[in-house]
C-alpha cells in the first residue's frame, strides 16, 4: 500500500468518464496492474503519449486499500515503439505477445524474467528490418520464449510419451493435446497430430534458450516458418485455454490484403 514505482508496459487504455482513463499495465515489480489516470484525456503534461499501447514507461502509482484500481500518478516514456506503431504486422505481433502475457499472469503477480523478455522482444520487433523475411521466424521464437517462461514450454527435443530423442524418431509429429513431439509408436491412436520437420523443431528448441537479440540470425525457410506457426499458435491457445484475438486479427488481415 502507498506510493510505488516500477517499469511497465501499457497493455490497454480505455476512456473513463469525461476526462479520465483506465490503464492496464504489465509492470515489472507488481505484475499486471489496473489504474485510473485522472485527467489523462486532457492533461497535456502528465501523460502525453505515455498511456498508449505498447509504451514502455516509468510508472508511479498510489495503491489504495479500498480499491482494485490504483491511482496512476505519472507515467514517463522510456520507449514509445514508433516502429511497432507504424507497421500493421509488427503491431499485430506485439498485440499477440501482450495478449499471451495478459491471459497467463494474474494481477499483482510479478514475473520479472517475463517482463524483461517482453521488453527485449518488443525492442527487437520495433527495430527489425526486413520484417517480411525475418519477422515470422522471430515472432514464433518470441512467442515460444514467453510461453516457456510462463510454464508452457512445448516438448521439442524428445518424444513427450517415451522420452525418445528427436534424432531417433523416424517421422516426428506434434500433438497439440500432449503439448509436444511424439514418436511413431506413441503417436498411434492419438488425434490432431501435425506432421512437422525436424529442422522446424530444432529451430524452436534453440530459440527457447538463445539470447533474444540473436533471434534474427536464425535462418527460416518458408516451410519451417509456416510449420512453426501451425504448431505454436494452436499450442498457445490450447495451453491458455482460450482463443487469442490477435491471431484472429492477423488471419483477417491476411485475408483482405497482402502487403
Amino acid at each position, binding site marked *: 500500500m502507498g506510493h510505488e514505482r516500477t517499469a511497465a508496459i501499457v*497493455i*490497454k*487504455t480505455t476512456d473513463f*468518464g469525461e476526462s479520465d482513463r483506465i490503464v492496464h499495465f504489465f509492470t515489472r515489480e507488481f505484475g499486471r496492474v489496473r489504474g485510473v489516470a485522472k485527467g489523462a484525456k486532457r492533461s*497535456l*503534461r*502528465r501523460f*502525453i*503519449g*505515455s498511456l*498508449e*499501447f*505498447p509504451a514502455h514507461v516509468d510508472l508511479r502509482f498510489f495503491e489504495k486499500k479500498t480499491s482494485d484500481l490504483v491511482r496512476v500518478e505519472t507515467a514517463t*516514456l522510456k520507449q*514509445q515503439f*514508433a516502429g511497432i*506503431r*507504424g*507497421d*500493421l504486422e509488427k*503491431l*499485430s505481433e506485439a*498485440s*499477440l505477445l*501482450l*495478449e499471451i502475457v495478459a491471459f497467463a499472469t494474474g494481477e499483482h503477480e510479478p514475473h520479472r524474467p517475463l517482463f524483461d523478455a517482453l521488453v527485449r522482444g518488443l525492442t527487437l520487433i520495433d527495430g527489425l528490418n526486413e520484417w517480411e523475411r525475418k519477422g515470422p521466424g522471430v515472432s514464433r521464437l518470441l512467442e515460444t520464449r514467453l510461453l516457456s517462461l510462463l510454464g508452457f514450454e512445448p516438448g521439442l527435443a524428445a518424444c513427450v510419451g517415451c522420452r525418445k530423442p528427436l534424432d531417433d524418431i523416424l517421422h516426428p509429429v506434434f500433438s497439440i493435446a500432449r503439448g509436444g513431439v511424439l514418436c511413431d509408436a506413441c503417436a498411434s491412436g492419438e488425434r490432431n497430430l501435425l506432421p512437422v520437420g525436424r529442422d522446424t523443431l530444432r529451430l524452436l528448441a534453440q530459440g527457447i534458450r538463445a539470447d533474444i537479440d540473436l533471434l534474427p540470425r536464425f535462418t527460416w525457410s518458408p516451410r519451417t516458418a509456416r510449420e512453426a506457426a501451425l504448431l505454436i499458435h494452436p499450442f498457445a491457445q490450447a495451453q491458455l485455454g482460450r482463443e487469442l*484475438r*490477435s491471431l*484472429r*486479427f*492477423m*488471419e*483477417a*488481415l491476411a485475408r*483482405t*490484403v497482402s*502487403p
Partner: protein
Amino acid sequence: MAHPGPIARLIEQFQKLPGIGEKTATRLAYHVLKSAPVLAQGLAEAIRRVKEEVVLCRSCWNLTDADPCAICRDDRRDPLQICVVEEPPDLLAIERTGKFRGHFHVLHGALSPLDGIGPDDLHFGELLDRLEKLGKKCEVIVATNLNADGEATALYLARILKPIGYRVTRLAQGIPTGGDLEYVDPLSIAKSLENRREL
C-alpha cells in the same frame, strides 16, 4: 423497506445506463415520480423515438433521422473528398470547425488486434463500394484517432486504397494547442517536424 414495484423497476432500468449506480438511479427514479407528468411522458417519448427514428445513413453510415443524411444530400459539398472517421462524434467534431466541405464515412470503430476487431467488423467494404462509384479522382482523408488503434486503421486504409490509385491523406499530427514542447512525446515531435510548414 423495499421500493414499490414500479419504482424498483425504474431504478433497475436506470442502473443499466453507463456510470449510474444504485444511489443515482434511486434519486432519478424518485425525481421522475415527483415531477409533473409531462416530464415523464417527454422522457419516455424521447427514448422511444431515438430507437425508432435514428437510423444509419446507407451512404456514409452516420446517424441520421433521414436516409440519406443531410450531409450526403447537400450538393454544395465536394463529393470527391471523403473524410473517414471512427465514430459519429468524431464527425461532429470536424463539422464544428466549419472548415471541411466534403463528405464523410463513419467506420463505427477502429481496428484493434487486442480486441480482435478486424477489417470485417468495420464499414470498410462499404467505403470501397462508394469510392468505386466515385472514381479515382477521390481523396480519402483519414481522420481516425491518433492512438494505436486509430493509427492501425489509418495504416490499413492506406494499404488497401493506395495500390488501387486513390489519394490517401492523414490529418496532420503534432503538438497540441497549449502543448509545452518539454512534455510532448517524441513521436508527436517527430511527426510535427515531418509536417512542418513555412511561416
